């Protein structure tokens, strides 16, 4: 392999190193769009929050809204359901954390930490075991029953019995009016 011997190696190497480095930087910038195109597109991101109208939901009923391709249960709880949930001591709960994305991670799973307004339960309707969608007004606590492996949740969506490890998550949401919620 031919080499030039007349120049000091440092001067010759510099231009090659400089070219190589700049080319490598260019390759990295060129690679970024190829990677970023797989990230959610702007039409997907436009649906990253949804405004829902909950005025049609009767007491004791729930409606399901899609948010980021996941089902969100909005349940209008009866006074009995609220009371049952509030009276539950934390020691009865297999999962003692609130799992509420509006609160800090270590917040305990009291009923207060699971809802913004006691009358309205807003939870992501996905069983924390293996991802099935629980059925409402079933199970020993009158909350939810997951048909796949029998996990049972109470009227605040907290796991009580069964293989699911965590309470159903509470998505980021806020009331934008007496009967309007913005999820996400």
């Amino acid at each position: 392999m031919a080499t030039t011997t007349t120049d000091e190696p440092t001067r010759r190497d510099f231009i090659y190193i400089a070219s190589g480095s700049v080319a490598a930087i260019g390759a990295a910038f060129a690679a970024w769009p190829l990677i970023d195109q797989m990230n959610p597109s702007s039409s997907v991101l436009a649906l990253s929050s949804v405004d829902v109208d909950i005025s049609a939901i009767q007491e004791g009923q729930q409606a399901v809204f899609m948010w980021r391709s996941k089902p969100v249960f909005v349940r209008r709880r009866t006074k009995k359901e609220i009371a049952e949930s509030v009276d539950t001591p934390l020691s009865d709960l297999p999962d003692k954390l609130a799992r509420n994305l509006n609160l800090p991670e270590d917040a305990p799973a009291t009923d207060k930490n699971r809802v913004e307004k006691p009358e309205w339960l807003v939870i992501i309707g996905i069983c924390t075991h293996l991802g099935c969608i629980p059925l409402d007004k079933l199970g020993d606590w009158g909350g939810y029953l997951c048909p796949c492996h029998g996990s049972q949740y109470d009227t605040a969506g907290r796991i009580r019995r069964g293989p699911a490890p965590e309470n159903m998550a509470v998505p980021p949401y806020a009331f934008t009016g007496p009967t309007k919620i913005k999820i996400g």
Partner: protein
Amino acid sequence: MRIVLPLAFAAALMAPALAAAQTDTSEPLPPRDANLSFQEPYFGLYDRAALQRGYQVYKEVCSACHSLNRVTFHSLGEDGGPGFSDAQVKALAAAAKIPAEPNDKGEEYNSSGERLTRPGIPADHMPAPFPNVQAARAANGGAAPPDLSVIEKAREGGADYVYSILTGFGQKPPPGFKVMDGKYYNPYFPGRNISMPPPLTDGAVTYSDGTKATIDQEAKDVATFLAWAGEPKMEERKREGFEVVIFLLVLSGLLYLSYRRVWRDKH
């Protein structure tokens, strides 16, 4: 010379075609120059105020017949576009009537046969004036008004063409030219018989920024808006183009020096 002669011969053969005169009156006139800011291919950016005025012209005049299917309300707030605020985008969307999903009874129409609608959200595309192309044709004498989302990319002359059509009405046809029934004379349209009646008039819209709404101004503004509708990423494209080309010029300089260094003793 041996290379130049045959190539010059080929060029000479092509020259007469360029001299073909526009005496044929069914051929459209070449579009007039609209002189819009973004038309400069390297540095031209959209005039933001013109984009907002153009959207107003589209909404208040054109949207009665022309859909803008590919433009979403949320894109009105993105960089490089009209730049409406989040609140404005939400308001513009909410004012729109979007065909609704079937209700709980499975209905899509009310008892009078009208399509049920819901207020728009930013993620929605702009609603079309007609539910399908057959209805569009039926309501417009057999000629469906085309969707305008990419109209300037779909026509030779782009923004100049749209501007020329909009300002080209009202001219006297040349003697002997037959204007077909139900159509209008517009020398910039292929065939010169256009089905669209003159859409713009002086003062057709009242601009909120106080600009005087002449036909010429309205045409320029909506041509600007439609250019953005077809190319919302144009400003980003040109900006990144400069970054890329300058980077590559630097890299080619370095590679040239490397090349000279490697080949120093071999020539």
